[in-house]
């Protein structure tokens, strides 16, 4: 309870769902064999932590930012470029991560103080411009960043796939297994930090600002500083997650670290899972990443099954999986605007009240 800052998911359905995801992530290396399930589980960990930090901005503070993935990228490039330049080693990764965190904090401070004084929409526009500029910069500086191709780098010996620790419960425990658990532990720790922050006196002020910024000011809260601090803290978390992901991928490039499609994914995950719940990010990430990886196959199977019918096989072509994800997203927004966890918690709250 103290670990959860006194704020567990409300009601057993939401609780069960979050516990299920957490247990599945913890057990993935033991339950499944092969690279693919571990890739999927790692992506869930990364997206859950990244989406949770975005939820602190969007769901708790009411700030729309398009630069959140940029901070993720700064952390990823920090670890990647440091490991590439200095050679594989824990020191290089730590140095790169520290550099990424520092740059993220500085950028967040500048963007926040520059643009959060005025209306929220101005902040959204500025973040869009800065993120775009950063994306272009990363691609146009091939000597430093590897340009469009990015940089592949080597990780410390212990984390390499070739490093065998032995066998446990019939599964080979390798450097990849260790890397996965590092990512999982890091993501879980960051999630708990975020949970503490939204339940702290500071986090409570963020929610007040979302509800009624002028009233929060009349109480004596200087909301520009609260908003800016929220952007800085979430940027730091995003950068940290970026560093973890780079360590897993052993590669950093615009497509994996800075792409706007990641930003959209994060937004979709927060909305599907439930804005302002934090746990929604975990559930949303699991649903989204699993759909992204297995919906294709499912749709492909459906296409084969309906091969004799007109039109349907075309619509069900595996390449149309994004279309179907879009349909699911629209249905979710229409019928469960609070998202999965938000909706479950609302039902629980209403059940208790009546």
């Amino acid at each position, binding site marked *: 309870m103290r670990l959860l*800052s006194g704020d567990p998911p409300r009601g057993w359905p939401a609780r069960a769902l979050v516990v299920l995801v957490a247990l599945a992530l913890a057990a993935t290396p033991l339950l499944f064999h092969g690279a693919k399930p571990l890739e999927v589980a790692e992506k869930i960990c990364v997206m859950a932590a990244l989406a949770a930090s975005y939820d602190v901005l969007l769901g708790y503070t009411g700030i729309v930012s398009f630069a959140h993935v940029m901070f993720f990228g700064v952390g990823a490039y920090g670890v990647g470029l440091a490991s590439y330049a200095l050679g594989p080693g824990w020191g290089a990764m730590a140095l790169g991560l520290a550099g990424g965190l520092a740059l993220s904090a500085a950028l967040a401070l500048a963007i926040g103080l520059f643009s959060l004084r005025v209306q929220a929409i101005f902040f959204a526009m500025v973040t869009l411009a800065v993120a775009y500029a950063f994306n272009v910069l990363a691609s146009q500086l091939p000597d430093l960043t590897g340009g469009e191709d990015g940089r592949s780098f080597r990780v410390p010996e212990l984390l390499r796939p070739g490093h065998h620790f032995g066998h446990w419960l019939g599964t080979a425990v390798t450097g990849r297994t260790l890397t996965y658990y590092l990512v999982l532990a890091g993501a879980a720790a960051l999630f708990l930090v975020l949970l503490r922050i939204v339940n702290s*006196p500071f986090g409570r*002020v963020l929610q007040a600002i979302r509800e009624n910024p002028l009233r929060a000011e009349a*109480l004596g809260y200087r909301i520009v500083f*609260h908003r800016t601090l929220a952007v800085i*803290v979430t940027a730091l978390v995003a950068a940290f997650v970026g560093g973890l992901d780079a360590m897993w991928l052993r590669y950093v490039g615009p497509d994996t670290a800075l792409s706007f499609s990641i930003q959209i994914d994060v937004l979709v995950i927060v909305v599907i899972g439930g804005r302002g719940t934090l746990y929604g990010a975990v559930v949303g990430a699991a649903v989204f990443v699993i759909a992204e990886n297995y919906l294709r196959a499912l749709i492909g199977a459906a296409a084969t099954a309906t091969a004799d019918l007109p039109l349907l096989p075309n619509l069900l072509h595996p390449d149309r999986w994004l279309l179907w994800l879009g349909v699911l997203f629209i249905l979710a927004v229409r019928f469960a605007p609070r998202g999965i966890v938000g909706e479950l918690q609302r039902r629980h709250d209403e059940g208790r009240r009546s």
Partner: protein
Amino acid sequence: MTPALETRELTIRFGGHVAVDAVSCAFFPGQLTAIVGPNGAGKTTYFNLMSGQLRASSGAVLVRGRDITGLDAPRRARLGLGRAFQLTNLFPALSVLENVRLACQARAGVHYEMTRPWMARRDILAAAHATLARVGLEGRAGSAVSALSHGDQRKLEVAMMMALEPDILMFDEPTAGMSVDEVPVVLDLIAQLKRDASKTILLVEHKMDVVRSLADRIIVLHNGKLMADGPPAEVIASPLVREAYLGAAA
């Protein structure tokens, strides 16, 4: 004696319209000043200029002799300027307790603390419960604000100002829209605060019986100008005021 709050030639223009027109007035501790005037006279705008929701076009606002014209609303609140709003102005999705607790937290100066859960600050929580009890809302602590009656929302609004323990209290029609049996609760509260000689109280109110019973002094605003200023009996009796404000009702 230094006034607790003072305005000098305070003016705000919206385009060609002068909503508050060179109002100079001083308010003193231990005094309850009622501000009256017809709708659109600039009473709420005058309040907004003093508490910092609006910036003056010209003129100055002083608190205890210090010029605060350049300060924003949060800084003015921290200097002891408390404001209860006319249109209910709360945090609608948060609980009744949380609304007051946020005010108590601001009073305690806890702004950026993020390493401990909010429950760990039991002092703030206790202060919030005590404040709710003062306005008779202790039974509704767990309710959503949206579930409160209009009268209870007004009480909550007053509770949030009181939680800040300001020296200067600005009530903007605190009893507007309240049912007859709810009005005395708020008036008793104001009367209670008035007994504390260190408090400076400003009250915008339409109900003349309320003004008569509570006010030490009345100022009249009309078309943004200060038209009359004096003891209640004198101001209410003046022909100018009878014509401009009380009109047919007098």
